[in-house]
């Protein structure tokens, strides 16, 4: 699917990886629906892209306003071809062991990282089914696979999101709708700094490094489901076709 002229909804788009995915998609001609909670950062992200493409920016919490997000997007653009569930809630920082984890904090993590992506998916699927085309990308983490002390809440949410994605892919077989789970890898982002306060992250790649993998998946990947390491993809393949 060419991104040119298509409509992509990206959550958590005001900073870090989400903002870089938005920039990459804009450069390839996609119209953008950007959602994030922080109005100021979102506004600055949107302003930077408005000369490049059509942008609808909504300062909302996807775990509470999924319907409003999709309604506004459909009213403006009529369709959503690509959904990137990138917004993530890390949980308390520093990250508590599960033994100490306040269940209310965990509930919030699961709401933002599992339920909101599924809710948005449910809302965009009818149109994708009708067009027999669409891509859903859920951003995950290796904490969803490996067990790291302190990462239990976040990791459980990403494990759940991955399972949701795999199940969706099974249920959407032969519909033309593709589902990808993408692990962006370690990056030097604000979120990562929150997860590991005081640790020097300056040697890690910035979020601009894995971002082209998302465009590559939309435009070139053929399989209906995959779990992908973005940085491996960028090293291996994306250099060929991405900007």
């Amino acid at each position, binding site marked *: 699917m060419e991104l040119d002229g298509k409509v992509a909804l990206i959550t958590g788009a005001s900073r870090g990886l989400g903002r870089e995915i938005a920039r990459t998609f804009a450069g390839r001609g996609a119209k953008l629906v950007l959602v994030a909670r922080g109005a100021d950062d979102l506004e600055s992200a949107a302003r930077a892209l408005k000369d490049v493409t059509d942008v609808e920016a909504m300062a909302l919490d996807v775990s509470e306003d999924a319907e409003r997000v999709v309604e506004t997007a459909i009213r403006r653009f009529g369709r959503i071809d690509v959904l990137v569930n990138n917004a993530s809630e890390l949980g308390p920082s520093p990250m508590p062991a599960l033994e100490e984890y306040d269940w209310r904090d965990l509930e919030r993590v699961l709401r933002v990282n599992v339920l909101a992506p599924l809710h948005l998916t449910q809302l965009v699927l009818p149109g994708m089914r*009708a067009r027999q085309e669409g891509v859903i990308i859920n951003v995950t983490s290796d904490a969803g696979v490996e067990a790291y002390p302190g990462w239990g809440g976040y990791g459980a949410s990403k494990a759940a999101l991955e399972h949701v994605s795999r199940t969706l892919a099974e249920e959407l077989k032969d519909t033309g709708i593709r589902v990808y789970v993408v692990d962006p890898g370690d990056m030097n982002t604000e979120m990562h700094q929150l997860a590991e306060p005081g640790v020097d992250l300056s040697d890690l790649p910035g979020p601009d490094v894995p971002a082209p993998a998302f465009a590559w998946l939309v435009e070139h990947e053929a399989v209906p489901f995959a779990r992908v390491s973005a940085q491996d993809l960028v090293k291996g393949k994306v250099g060929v076709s991405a900007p």
Partner: protein
Amino acid sequence: MIADLDTGPALEFALPPELEAHEPPEARGLARDAVRLLVSDRRTDRIVHATFRDLPWFLDSGDVVVVNDSATLPARLSATDEDGRELTLHLSTRLSDDTWVVEPRGTDVATGTVLSLPAGASIRLARPHRGNRLWVAKPSLPEPTLDYLHRWGRPIRYDYVPRDWPIENYQTVFARRPGSAEMPSAGRPFSSRVVTALAARGVAVETITLHTGVASLEADEPPYEEWFDVPERTAHAVRQAFARGSRVLAVGTTVVRALESAISNCEVRAAFGWTDLVVTGQHPICSASALLTGFHEPRASHLQMLTALADRDHVARAYESALEQRYLWHEFGDVHLIL
């Protein structure tokens, strides 16, 4: 491509044959509600390309959607004339229990001609009806008309639909009262899930009845008289919607015709009977503020009706966009929402 906008009698454009829907969307692998939806805002001229299932997103709580609950009859019969020639007969409009307006297709007939119908039935052409295409006729059938039609009739179809489809393909989810010769097709994309989504959003769905006759074949002919019924419940809902500043969305030109036929002092009142009203750009519409409709052929009278709601330039712009984006025309095609 679209010319003659300001002065001409009708919107003119060339409809490429590949943009004709030749079969129901289900036969193209699409759900009923998965056809495309072109949304055009007549105030801003903005155009959005969406999917019918997303219709509720374009409406607001308090809006009222008015649909036609007329069910489609299998109104096409095989007939034989007195010389043994086979022809097709379309039953258009039921004037009374034993009198119909009919259209014999593809043969010359005269007053008094008796056509033979299946199962020993027959029909006598009593007199021409408005010109030379339609006839007032009296059938002689072995059982009640609706039973007979369901046993021997098939849905009326035109050249762009190459084969017969079961009558279910010609019923909308709202179909309650049998009587239309041709499907009120703007209601076809509605599914129960779309209706449920409208209800959840606070959008009411109200009904009128208008039994459609045979198409005026998209030429310059005006439509014929049709029977309609606007119940008080619907009239009330429409008045209330306007009073609180909500939209009234007419689903199909048949609904506009019925509602406009029930107008008094620019307010919708309960009414029923025969209407010969022709809605054109000459008279602004009082009874609806939005319209959902299929894509109409060049010069069609239905296209004229659109200009009663939106100005000609707006309709032309929307049609240009529909042609460019390759929307599908006719009763099994895509739909256009004018807000």
